[in-house]
């Protein structure tokens, strides 16, 4: 009897189509139906780096030295200095030393200062301490000092000690006196000084 028309070969022919299709379906479930993995976006970002420390360029422990025409030596150091645009530099904890050829000097310390290149001045704020080699120790709130010559003016009242005793004044100016070129301190707007005689 004639074998029935190749049942076996017909099944194999169908299997040759069905089996690859099944494989395809299985393979696609791997990608299309996979679980949603969590977002990559909220990765923890280091808070410290987000601060402004990184955002602007600044100089650590800057040191500036210069000599004026009349031979006074000026040196300035600070903990940090950062440019603030149009030729302005903001320095923290500024320490300036104005030294005259004859050796007398004036030390200025300020919490922070804005050094302006345009008119060569440094505006010191946040409490300024002025010390002179002749024994004056004065404190004031703000002081505007030139950096290419010895000239400074306090923004408000100043008080402190000197060889003459404790002193308070409404305003103070430091400049070089024209006759002998020495450093002159001018206290104005009311001066009060208490001197205790030494026996």
């Amino acid at each position: 009897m004639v074998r029935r028309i190749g049942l076996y070969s017909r099944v194999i022919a169908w299997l040759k189509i069905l089996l690859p299709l099944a494989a395809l379906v299985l393979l696609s479930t791997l990608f299309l139906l996979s679980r949603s993995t969590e977002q990559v976006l909220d990765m923890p970002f280091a808070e410290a780096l987000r601060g402004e420390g990184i955002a602007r360029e600044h100089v650590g422990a800057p040191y500036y030295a210069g000599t004026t025409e009349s031979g006074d030596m000026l040196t300035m150091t600070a903990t940090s200095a950062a440019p603030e645009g149009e030729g302005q530099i903001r320095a923290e904890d500024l320490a300036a030393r104005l030294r005259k050829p004859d050796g007398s000097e004036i030390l200025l310390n300020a919490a922070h200062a804005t050094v302006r290149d345009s008119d060569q001045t440094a505006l010191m704020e946040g409490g300024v301490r002025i010390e002179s080699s002749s024994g004056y120790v004065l404190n004031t709130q703000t002081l505007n000092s030139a950096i290419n010559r010895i000239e400074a003016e306090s923004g408000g009242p100043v008080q402190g000690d000197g060889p003459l005793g404790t002193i308070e004044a409404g305003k103070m100016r430091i400049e070089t006196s024209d006759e002998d070129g020495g450093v002159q301190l001018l206290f104005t707007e009311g001066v009060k000084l208490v001197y205790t005689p030494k026996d």
Partner: protein
Amino acid sequence: QGTDVKFGSLKQDTSAPVEVTADALAVNQNAGTALYTGNVVIIQGDMRLAAPRVLVVYSEAQGRIERMEATGGVTLVSGEEAAEAERADYDIEGGTVVMSGNVLLTQGQNALTSEKMVVNLESGAAQMSGRVKTILQPEKGQ
């Protein structure tokens, strides 16, 4: 010839603190001087010395004032005594005030004028010299 006058109430402790108030002060560090200008008032104990201009000469080394030169019309007031002159030199350490230039000293009712007067702050004595003139007011009601 000189006249000794009791400047009674001027006797005082010359080591009391000296307070100086003025409109302006110019300190010249090299010269070691400080120039007070603009109604300067120097107060020590109950003595007050007022002048438009006072130059203070100090020695930086020992940090003490050597002398004060008040010029431009000086008035010295102490207790009820008052003295006026063109100029006064006040030596704190020595405790003396030397007033010169038509000195006028008023003590209560009496007034004395002279060219020069040296006041010793410790003893309270004033020594006037140079054309001393005394104007004594007779006591009223005698």
